[in-house]
């Protein structure tokens, strides 16, 4: 059969690399073919999500941040300093977390989706015009965020002026100083050329961009067992591939950026400098619970248990 798989990035970005690996595995091990639909070719995030729910698409990669309007709990990934800050910690967490592999699975199932895998895409960095090392340094700085209340809350707590702006206006907005900063995973800063229009890149360690691959549940449940196994195997192969790919990705992206713009200033906040930003996370957690109620509270608890397990690793 022909399976259709849409994702939110270009073919050469992390989600595209993941999808290509999945396609490769499926086509090498069966008669099925997988058609890939990169960013924008079938619409935006919300559109491809609906298409997957309706079964026009068999597979969809959507970041929980975008799923927020459909599944409020998914916004948990926007809470700063919640995810492990090391590669090994992250890998352990994503492989073993109960919250991800069980709790989220049933949440997505309620929306007609079979959650197949969640994986990290890379550390989120903030690029700005001027350097900062404390919330005071962000005072009055307009940082572009996605239209999401939790993100807005985070950046308020960080001391900045969060400015929601559609993605299409970000490059121009930075160029013309309507905004003075933005946040994105490192690889995206490189591939979307954000470094061309900002001068400082700061590693705050506040988040790692997470994404999720899902199948239409009706489609998946009706697959013969061997095909279900095939899909799971291909997902595992893609996940293993992406974790290795990830390992060098940050360094590669950073190298490329510095090659293109040698005077780009790179700042890594020290543990001490991160403290006031960490403190801000509490406000955001409270906001998250306010928005999601008891299910959100339970999910957050489970998350923290899993994180402790990951940290113990």
């Amino acid at each position: 059969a022909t399976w259709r798989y849409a994702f939110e990035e270009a073919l050469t970005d992390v989600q595209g690399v993941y999808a290509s690996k999945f396609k490769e595995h499926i086509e090498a091990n069966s008669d099925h073919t997988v058609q890939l639909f990169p960013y924008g070719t079938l619409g935006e995030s919300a559109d491809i999500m609906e298409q997957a729910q309706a079964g026009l698409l068999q597979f969809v990669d959507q970041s929980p941040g975008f799923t927020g309007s459909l599944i409020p709990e998914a916004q948990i990934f926007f809470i700063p300093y919640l995810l492990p800050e090391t590669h090994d910690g992250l890998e352990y967490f994503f492989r073993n977390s109960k919250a991800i592999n069980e709790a989220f699975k049933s949440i997505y199932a309620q929306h007609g989706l079979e959650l197949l895998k969640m994986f990290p895409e890379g550390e989120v960095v903030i690029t700005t015009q001027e350097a900062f090392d404390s919330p005071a340094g962000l005072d009055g700085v307009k940082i572009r965020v996605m239209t999401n209340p939790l993100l807005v809350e985070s950046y308020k707590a960080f001391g900045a002026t969060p400015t929601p702006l559609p993605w299409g206006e970000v490059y121009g907005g930075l160029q013309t100083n309507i905004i003075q900063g933005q946040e994105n995973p490192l690889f995206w800063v490189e591939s979307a050329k954000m470094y061309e229009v900002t001068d400082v890149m700061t590693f705050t360690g506040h988040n790692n961009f997470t994404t999720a691959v899902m199948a239409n549940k009706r489609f998946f449940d009706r697959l013969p067992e061997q095909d279900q196994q095939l899909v799971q195997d291909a997902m595992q192969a893609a996940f293993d591939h992406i974790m290795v790919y990830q390992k060098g990705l940050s360094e590669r992206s950073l190298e490329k950026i510095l090659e293109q713009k040698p005077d780009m200033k790179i700042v890594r906040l020290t543990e001490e400098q991160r403290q006031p930003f960490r403190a801000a996370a509490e406000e955001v957690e409270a906001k998250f619970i306010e928005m999601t109620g008891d299910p959100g509270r339970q999910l957050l608890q489970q998350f923290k248990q899993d994180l402790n397990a990951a940290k113990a690793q």
Partner: protein
Amino acid sequence: MTALMVGTMIVLLLLGFPMMVTLIVAAFIGFLAMFGGVDQMDFMIQQFMAGIRPASLVAVPMFILAADIMTRGHSADRLIEMVMKFIGHVRGGLAISTATACTLFGAVSGSTQATVVAVGSPLRPKMLKAGYKDSFVLALIINASDIAFLIPPSIGMIIYGVVSNTSISELFIAGVGPGFLILGMFALYSYVYARIHQVPTEARASWPERWRAVRRAIWPLGFPVIIVGGIYGGVFSPTEAAAVCVLYAVILEFIVFRALKPVDLYTIAKSTGLITAVVFILVAAGAAFSWIISFAQIPQAILASLGLAEAGPTGVLIAISVAFFIGCMFVDPIVVILVLVPIFAPVVESAGLDPVLVGVLITLQVAIGSATPPFGCDIFTAIAIFRRPYMEVIRGTPPFVLMLILAAVLLIMFPQIALFLRDLAFA
């Protein structure tokens, strides 16, 4: 399926069906072919909504509204009068000014549709009065507005840059050369046209006359300041600049000049809404049509049959130009970039082509496609705003399309047209 879709579209178009129906019926056929029934047709509506979702579209009604207020009041007249005092005696001067104004306004505002309205509606009557034929005037406005795709900020280039992993700054700089080359061609053609058709010139104005005209235009000169200064100066986004222009136009015409009455504002807003709706429903229907083309992977199928792998660099450039030209004739340019760029990426790389050159060439094709029949957003906008028949709006197009194709050929033969500024800046 492709043949049936395009065939039906052309037949309905020729019969005289509303343009939105031709697009919708073609999309219907595509959905039927892909899904074998009407169960999934809801997604046509989803794509309608997706088509009119981009926040930047808000600039279109805002600039239409501001332009309409200015045209019905005094601002537009005074601005044009000032320009005429300086260039009225030059053969083809008005046409050249119109082309330049369209290019610059389009470059800054980022919306070619808004340009057709904002520059076209005050200047077209003057050009007609000066003796230019309407078909020439309409084609000039539409095509000169589309040069804006090549001059930063350009949304087409931003999207190409992200999809193909190319420096957007380099693309922006590389677009400037070809943009002004085309503007030069249009200016030359305007001059030749004015000579051949013996368009009369005005007597050369004296400096005191010019000075008086400048003084009369001092308030309306705030508009270019808001738009150019506001956007390049980093004060507003293009959408916001459009809204601020509305505010400024209201202040000028209702308070300073007292040229309009409050009830006029409602009438103008109503007609703005009407024009917006007529164009946006086509944007919406076009999105549904583009979606099914993309979903059925039609471009991939067509391109796979071409055997591009053996073509040399020039062959690949020509193939890209033709593919984007045809694609943009029917499908929304942004979707064309998103779908086709990744397909061509491997051949571009193996042919050793400069991705910046390819990006400029593609942007040029997008500009051509938006102004060429049968489907072009700027054509629709011109029809809606000027209320002229379809055929009349496109009648004057061929010379412009020929010049644009010539520009593409020159660009393929002499890539330095695009690259020399880039090399200068990034060497």
